[in-house]
């Protein structure tokens, strides 16, 4: 009898907590709807200028949902974000680069110097990155610096202290094709709150926000995350 009572009590507690989480989820959906519809006025005037560079990490399984990715990027362009980097570990987004760009308006592929050239224009620049731009690129950059060091050494100069600096590493990364600015904000779409190998060299002071899986992509949540960043 007592174990039955305990079992019923357990079910009751489970029910209460389930209701709590359900209500929380409804509240989030409602808030997102209110933000999207423009009822919450504070989200209408976001100072997007504070967000110079935004990166989006997408879980590789979620990256297969190209339509969702296109929708996300178009929303970012509409909000007024100027520079976006799309990253997924396996490079699925990189391979789908042409399809993504074809389906977007006012978006172009990222090039060095875009920060200056796109000022005052409506166009957004879009960069694609994958695992090969992370640790692999750092290893290649290290190789480049090493070759330089060995070359100078063979000429009788010991420039070790001047070659292996952070600035030279940044240059070397650019030389191997994996340069790129440090994002101000990184949005992670996936089941895990983890940046999945996004180029470590660029993450020094980036704010990282976990948005949940891509299937639950909502305009309101996106706007809220950007708004919160611009407040800080």
């Amino acid at each position, binding site marked *: 009898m007592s174990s039955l009572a305990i079992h019923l009590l357990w079910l009751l507690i489970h029910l209460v907590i389930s209701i709590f989480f359900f209500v929380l989820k409804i509240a989030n959906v409602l808030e997102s709807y209110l933000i999207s519809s423009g009822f919450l006025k504070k989200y209408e005037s976001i100072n997007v200028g504070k967000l110079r560079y935004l990166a989006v990490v997408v879980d590789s399984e979620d990256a297969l949902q190209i339509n969702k990715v296109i929708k996300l990027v178009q929303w970012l362009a509409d909000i007024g974000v100027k520079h976006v980097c799309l990253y997924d570990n*396996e490079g699925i987004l990189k391979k789908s680069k042409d399809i993504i760009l074809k389906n977007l308006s006012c978006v172009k592929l990222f090039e060095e110097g875009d920060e200056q050239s796109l000022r005052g224009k409506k166009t957004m620049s879009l960069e694609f990155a994958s695992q090969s731009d992370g640790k692999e690129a750092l290893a290649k950059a290290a190789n480049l610096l090493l070759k330089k060091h*060995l070359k100078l050494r063979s000429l009788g100069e010991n420039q070790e202290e001047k070659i292996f600096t952070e600035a030279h590493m940044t240059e070397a990364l650019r030389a191997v094709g994996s340069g790129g600015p440090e994002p101000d904000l990184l949005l992670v779409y996936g089941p895990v709150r983890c940046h999945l190998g996004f180029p470590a060299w660029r993450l*020094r002071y980036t704010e990282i926000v976990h948005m949940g899986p891509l299937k639950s992509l909502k305009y309101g949540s996106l706007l809220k995350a950007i708004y919160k960043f611009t407040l800080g």
Partner: protein
Amino acid sequence: MLSLRFPISVEKVPLNVNRSPCPSSKAQNLSCSSCSRSAWQRAFAGATGLAAREEDKEVNGRMALTGDLVKLEEPLPSGLRWELMPRHVAVIMDGSARWARRRGLPASSGHEAGVRSLKELVELCGKWGIRILTVFAFSSENWSRPKAEVEFLMGLFERVIEFELQNFSREGVRISTIGDSSRLPKSLQKLLNKAECSTKDNSRLHLVVAVSYSGKSDIAQACKSIAHRVRDGLIQLEDVDEELIEEELATSCCEFPCPDLLIRTSGELRLSNFLLWQLAYAELFFSEALWPDFGKAEFVEALRSFQQRLRRYGSRES
């Protein structure tokens, strides 16, 4: 969301500590005879209530169990499963100065309160089977703080390490430091060397303290070390790859250099140049609590969050 595997932990702690693997522990080595459970706990205790600790084996990103039985020091709080405990936890201890400011106290009081939080965390990690704890005590950017604060912090590190050295030896804690120690006061450098030497054989918990550390500098110095090895003919240029860089990073002193879980306190959502390379697949947990307020409850929340997520380390589940 809760599932029916919502366990209640065993109340008593009758089990003795046995950190090192016991060669003859194939047999049941649990002293459960003194383990008294209430009717409530009998109804709800699941497999997680058992004080079983087996050899770790990674399966699809989760820790699975095989092997022998050893004893837990303290039962885990409800909802935590010991087989899913992270091996390496990293912490950015942020918010001590803010904590002090809110109370109208000087920053030094905040840092001292922060030391108490660190001691509690070290204790919990040791009890709950976490093998490595890396803490970000002082970054290379922190040198630009007011001189008085920097001097106080250096003094605090010295006092704490000197005071705790015996405790570390008794508790089986191994201490290592990572970062550019050349900028530290000579007395502190000497003390840190002494601490590292005297605790190097301890194996219960490896406490790695990052002092004057920068993630980018760590990577740059790894490249420099590799250059030396190439120069000395120990490796070829073609051998330079990701694995080699990882071997040369400061965290190569650890058994598991890459953290499974990063906790940052005070609500900031950044890595702040900490373990940039090593955190590629770490679960990132950002706690709103300021560091001196980060205690057992907050740590349990972080561990729960970690255990609830499936981590695939970039691969895809077949």
